[in-house]
């Protein structure tokens, strides 16, 4: 685990302890299980976002994609009698298609990713609302998918703790993502392209392909979380479903050490970032803070976190020059980037 991740973990524990001290209901099994469920769902699309941010891009359409694909998924299985397994794979394919499109537009057409995905944000939201004629999509009476419901939104008792299956999904996704990003050839390419695309190209990396595949992974994982979230909420009003989720994702990635300039960040950090955001959300609820202040609290904590991080980076940077011959010191500052052991 990196130093940065460790300090994030400590921050989570401190915030958790403070909340638990003020309101012991924080530690109730039910509350912890619900918070964990949120972490599971939000964690998956935050990891999705992290892939794009690491190659130096940005994906703003996450929330709209979750709304559109969620609406489509429910429509497929409820109204069109498509087998839910087939529907699931269709939805994942849809996410992959959207990701491919964003990747191609940013690399081959050279449009800035902010613009591409901002247009996506508007288009998919509009499409979702038009598709349902702005009505809420949901499960009618008698519609029952016990297997799907158990898999996606169920909980299994593990040593007396009802473990939400979304957490299981997150653990699997995070495990694979960790292996890909921190251990595989492809992961190394993601970081190289994000850090310096020109140098990556001169080293024979097909940077366009690497960038597109980051958007594809992002689209696929967002689709997975879209299904989980749809099964959890069970009814989707397309005008608001998933609103601002892209901002939760970006916030988690940034808290987790991703730089919006690309080339940095770790999977463990992103998961921890998601946990911190959800604990803060929980804190607002439990401490009786008006829920209208929800975003303000989150924004403040992120800002303080980033400021503190910047302060320590500056200090570490200044330290070697003070010591003079510091070239012999192993591994300064952000070198710990991929040493995620």
């Amino acid at each position, binding site marked *: 685990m990196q130093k940065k991740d460790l300090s994030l973990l400590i921050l989570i524990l401190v915030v958790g302890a403070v909340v638990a001290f003020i309101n012991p209901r924080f530690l109730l099994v039910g509350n912890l299980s619900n918070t964990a469920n949120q972490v599971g769902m939000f964690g998956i699309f935050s990891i999705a976002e992290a892939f794009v941010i690491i190659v130096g891009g940005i994906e703003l359409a996450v929330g709209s994609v979750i709304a559109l694909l969620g609406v489509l998924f429910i429509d497929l299985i409820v109204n069109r009698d498509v087998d839910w397994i087939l529907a699931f794979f269709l939805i994942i394919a849809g996410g992959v298609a959207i990701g491919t499109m964003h990747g191609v537009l940013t690399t081959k057409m050279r449009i800035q990713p902010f613009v591409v995905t901002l247009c996506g944000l508007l288009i998919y939201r509009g499409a979702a609302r038009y598709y349902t004629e702005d009505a809420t999509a949901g499960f009618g009476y008698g519609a029952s998918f016990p297997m799907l419901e158990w898999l996606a939104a169920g909980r299994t008792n593990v040593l007396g703790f009802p473990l939400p299956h979304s957490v299981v999904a997150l653990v699997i996704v995070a495990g694979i993502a960790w292996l890909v990003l921190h251990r595989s*050839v492809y992961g190394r390419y993601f970081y190289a392209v994000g850090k310096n695309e020109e140098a990556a190209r*001169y080293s024979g990396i097909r940077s366009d392909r690497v960038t597109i595949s980051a958007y594809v992974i992002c689209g696929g994982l967002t689709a997975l979380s879209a299904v989980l979230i749809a099964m959890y909420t069970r009814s989707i009003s397309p005008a608001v479903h998933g609103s601002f989720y892209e901002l939760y994702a970006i916030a988690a990635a940034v808290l987790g050490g991703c730089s919006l300039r690309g080339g940095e960040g770790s999977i463990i950090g992103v998961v921890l970032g998601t946990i911190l955001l959800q604990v803060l959300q929980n804190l607002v609820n439990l401490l009786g803070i008006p829920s209208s202040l929800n975003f303000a609290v989150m924004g403040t904590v992120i800002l303080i976190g980033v400021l503190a991080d910047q302060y320590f980076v500056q200090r570490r940077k200044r330290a070697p020059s003070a010591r003079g011959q510091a070239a012999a010191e192993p591994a300064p500052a952000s070198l710990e980037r991929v040493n995620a052991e």
Partner: protein
Amino acid sequence: MREPFLELIDIGKTYPGVVALDHVSLSVAPGEVIALLGENGAGKSTLMRVLGGVVAPSSGTVRIDGADRTGYTVTDAIAAGIAFVHQELNLFDNLDVAGNVFIGREPVFGGPLRLIDRATLRAKVRPLIARLAADFAPDTPLAELSLAQRQLVEIIKALSLNARCVIMDEPTSSLTLSETERLMQVIAGLKADGVSVIFITHRLNEVVQCADRAVVLRDGRTVGTLTRGELNPAAMIRLMIGRDLRSLYVPPAAPPGNIVLDVVDAITSTYPSRAVSLQLRRGEILGLAGLVGSGRTELARAIFGVEPLLAGGISLDGEPVRISTPRAAIDRGIYLIPEDRKGCGLLLDFPIAENISLPDLASYASLGLVDRSRETDNADRQRERLKIRATDVKMQVGTLSGGNQQKVVLAKWLSMRPKVLIFDEPTRGIDVGAKQEIYDMLRRLADAGVAILMISSDMEEVIGVSDRIAVMHEGRISGFLARSEFSEHNVLQLAVGHSI
């Protein structure tokens, strides 16, 4: 001859380990046109930076209008009427001509609102445009102007500051013939108005055409001054060369073998009407000399697949190959060590080991996962072989010195099987010790059968390391030199477009 108003007396400038200027003196009279000549690295640009107040001299005096100036800065230079027309123009693409000329000095109205008085602005610029007979208006957007026109905008800006001396650093290096002709007229016009011009150039005809005096620098020293009557290309070249080159040359172990790389009529986007052909043999080091901007780097980038080849072909071991990406070049054993080490050669934040393994990462992996111990072992081997001075291959490359960084770039390719190695400015910004190590490594590689193309602007390096030299001039190869024909004189003749 009028009295000089501007004098540089005994100027010295030393950088750590390098003497850039060594007791150089230069005086400028009103209305005088001075050409500043010398090879790459002779100290011309440094001298002009001293005059422009950008660089503080280590010793010597700047005297303006008879008064010695101490702590002379850019602001002082501007106030004294010295204007710099930069090689890479310092203009704003998103403003119009008038906006660029008066940037930071806009006439304003409206009191505290400080609104720009556009009418006055244009009225002020109009006569200056007329003075140079330029073919654009005050409100023409800069983005619509050609490079030559932008240069005129820079000169107009200088005139608007009441410049008495305009410095131009290689003003004609990227102009067409007719544009150059125009600029010569502008210079003559300035001269007639009593404005002095100092220009750095490699084009000797221009010097003959418009200079009153040519000052030749070599290795940071003034080696001679030619006045109007003495100005001819032969005399200038004689002054520019003539230092004693250390003998670096180590002959190859065996005569060069078959042709490995055959470039036939290659055309790059920078010089769309000039074709380049050259052949590179197994075991030889071919030096590619020429002035900056002569198309050498573009050729290297085209062979490596970074830039498309507009026409022509490349054969490798006698077989025609199509190389459209660096990956394709790398897969065929053609490797490039780029000029821009920090921007293109390395990932500075990455550890040494990860930089070395990057182009061949798949071979360090099983089932797609990188075997880090194999990666580290190889990096350690390369570190010893190339004597990279680092305690640990996990160190970030950015913390190493220039010479050691260059060795890391070299290590990337030596971990693989190079067939053709293109080395663009191999020792730029590298200390003397590391230089020698890199030269030794080049010869060892050549003896092991690698074909090496070495682009270099360093005369000592080109003559001391190459087995054969190709010289480029404005996009074409102006000549090849065999070992017996090597001389600074011959290389320079070809580089400025003359024949030998």
